[in-house]
């Protein structure tokens, strides 16, 4: 009896001492409520469904399951910081707050805590300089790439010259909305177009003054840098003043299904820049249907699958879980830490082979991340809305942005940050 008891204790001790793989912690900082909840829910659904797919189909990544617990912020930067503080101790591998304001608040915290942050297509643009921002990444493209790709598209449709043209920038009157201004001003000087700045106060439900000005001044093109209700109202106001939709181009945060559907047929022809493909014509969506939707494991109602913002959430989840694979291979362990995750992100290689293997061939451009370049290649394409078909389509290939203008801006801003915060070179 005594022996049996002792044996039981010994067995329990052995089991207890065995290496047990913890989950890969991917806290999902999301906002399904509040003024931007409709957009936040779609991104969160895409992120969560992809994580669920990997768990259900593959048992996670490298045999370790993913734990993607959501923390609701209501698009409140302070609440985002609370979510960060509440979850970082659980072994969080990476954060993606989906808010430029929150990103600015989290940059010093993640840097101090050694946890990577991925602000894909948003946040502080100059974090692309990994030599200064060791923990922060914004691959595959940033705001300034977006501005440049838009200008390149306008050059393409104007036989290579924007001399004498006028472009109005209707922007959210916030740090987010002001991000493209230096780039567009520099590009304006380079290509000879006049830039008119039209700030719109948050949330942007009332924009009559700005659209009366556009009607009076008749700019050749209007570029919009908005989020949430500002986009829907702007597209409706543009239709009201009969501004030609094909001359109205949004940043990727102004180019979702939510932005164009409320104005019905009026939004037909509206354009936006994007850094990933549109639609569901990719094998991964078959797997999501089989392993997630049909299994009743969808994060939302399942109705968002294939929308622009769902795809963006899914794409980000795919890039980050591929970073996990890289980290696992680099360090020879499946159960990685945040520091290993950072290494994985910094050595991420996305090419046709990698994207094909995860059912996303052609979904986004090929790129490599490096210590110096946390921003990726900065490629973008133009998508256009077909109101009759109720769908977006890419009307250009993914093409590069003008790094001769953007890189000096990145260097200047990141150098200023490094000087303010006494940051030494991280790559040498």
């Amino acid at each position, binding site marked *: 009896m005594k022996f049996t008891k002792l044996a039981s204790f010994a067995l329990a001790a052995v089991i207890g001492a065995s290496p047990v793989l913890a989950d890969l912690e991917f806290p999902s900082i999301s906002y399904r*409520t509040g003024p931007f909840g409709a957009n936040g829910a779609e991104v969160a659904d895409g992120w969560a469904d992809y994580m669920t797919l990997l768990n259900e189909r593959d048992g996670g990544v490298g045999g370790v399951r993913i734990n993607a617990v959501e923390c609701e912020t209501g698009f409140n930067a302070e609440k985002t910081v609370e979510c960060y503080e509440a979850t970082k101790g659980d072994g969080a591998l990476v954060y993606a707050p989906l808010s430029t304001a929150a990103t600015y608040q989290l940059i010093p915290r993640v840097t101090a805590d050694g946890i990577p942050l991925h602000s894909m297509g948003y946040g502080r643009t100059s974090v692309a300089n990994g030599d200064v921002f060791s923990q922060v990444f914004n691959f595959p493209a940033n705001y300034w790439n977006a501005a440049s790709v838009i200008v390149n598209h306008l050059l393409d449709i104007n036989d290579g010259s924007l001399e004498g043209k006028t472009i109005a920038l209707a922007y959210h009157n916030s740090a987010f909305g002001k991000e493209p201004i230096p780039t567009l001003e520099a590009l304006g000087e380079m290509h000879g177009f006049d830039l008119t700045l039209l700030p*719109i*106060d948050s949330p942007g*439900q*009332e924009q009559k003054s700005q659209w009366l000005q556009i009607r009076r001044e008749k700019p050749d093109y209007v570029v919009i840098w908005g989020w949430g209700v500002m986009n829907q109202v702007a597209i409706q106001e543009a239709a009201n003043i009969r501004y030609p939709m094909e001359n109205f181009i949004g940043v990727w945060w102004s180019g979702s299904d939510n932005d164009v559907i409320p104005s019905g047929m*009026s939004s037909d022809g509206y354009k936006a820049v994007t850094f990933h493909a549109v639609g569901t014509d990719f094998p991964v969506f078959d797997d999501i249907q089989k392993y997630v939707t049909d299994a009743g494991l969808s994060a939302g109602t399942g109705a968002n699958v294939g929308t622009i913002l769902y795809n963006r959430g899914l794409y980000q989840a795919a890039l980050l879980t591929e970073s996990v694979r890289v980290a696992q291979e680099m360090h020879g362990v499946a159960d990685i830490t945040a520091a290993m995750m950072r290494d994985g992100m910094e050595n991420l290689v996305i090419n046709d082979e990698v994207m094909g293997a995860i059912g996303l061939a052609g979904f986004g451009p090929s790129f490599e991340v490096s210590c110096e370049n946390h921003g990726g290649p900065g490629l973008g394409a133009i998508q256009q809305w077909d109101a009759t078909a109720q769908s977006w389509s890419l009307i250009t290939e993914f093409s590069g942005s003008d790094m001769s203008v953007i890189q000096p801006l990145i260097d200047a801003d990141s150098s200023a940050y490094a000087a303010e915060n006494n940051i030494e070179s991280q790559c040498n």
Partner: protein
Amino acid sequence: MYDQLLYGIEAAINGLMTGVMYSLVALGFVLIFKASGIFNYAQGVMALFAALTLVGIQSGQVPFAHLINALFGTKVHHFGWTLPAVAAILLTIGVMILFAWLVERYLLKHLVNQEPIILFMATIGLAYFMEGVGDLMWGAEIKKIDLPIPQGINETIDSLTYDWFGYGFYIDNLDITASIIAIFLVISLTIFSQYSTTGRALRAVADDHQAALSVGISLRSIWVIVWGLAGFIALVAGVMWGAKSGVQSSLSLITLKALPVLMLGGFTSIPGAIIGGMIIGMGEKVFEFVVSSSWFGDAMGFTMNATENWFAYVLALIFLVFRPQGLFGEKIIERV
């Protein structure tokens, strides 16, 4: 200079029209404050909830579908039918009356004769509760209002003004529709408030809950009536604003546009809500037009943009300095 004058007039007219849109929200506040002395923080959320309910009912959406599916493993979302607009509007009004009854039954009844600040705090709680219930009931996605509301430039005004001045004025058909509705509402509510027995009872309740009770006025009925009316006005405001942006959570933020209107027009005056709205709307649009213009920049050396949000409050504060009760509000004198 002639061009600038025309542009300024166009901005002023659009400001007046936009102000009417603000007034549609402010009217709900006035009605409840006038009849019960409560500053209803939830009025903006009521507009959102009413618009969500209208779209949900009309499109045959199953309320609480997400919750039902999560609890019972079902996959229900829609009933499979759509209702005519009139039927959907009537049913939504019914829902808002039911909401008024629930508010009275489970909230206000327990707060009779409490300090105004307590009632105000209760409406803050109500606002957050309703926002959550609205999301849970109808979902958080952006919805399109399917009512035959005219929208876009008014061609007649455009061509007429072009013939007269050589420049066609832009006036949005939605704003014209809102103005007509607002005028109708103001006239109806003023007549109701001033000349009907129920209207007089509303005012008595606003003056003193206890005194009104002592003369046989049913406080509970009055509160249901007034919150029901405010629910109807919230529906109108939600539909008009929702037509611009789609029905979505941010609709509740239109409250911020109503506050300066109330400060200026007075919390107790129905016509004041309209006049206040028009002054705020015109003031902010003309100010924005002036300070963002190139000639202002040439003269002053700088220009300003995105002034509307803060200028509306500055304008209201200026009026408050001279008339604390607002332009049309009642001056309250309490004798000791």
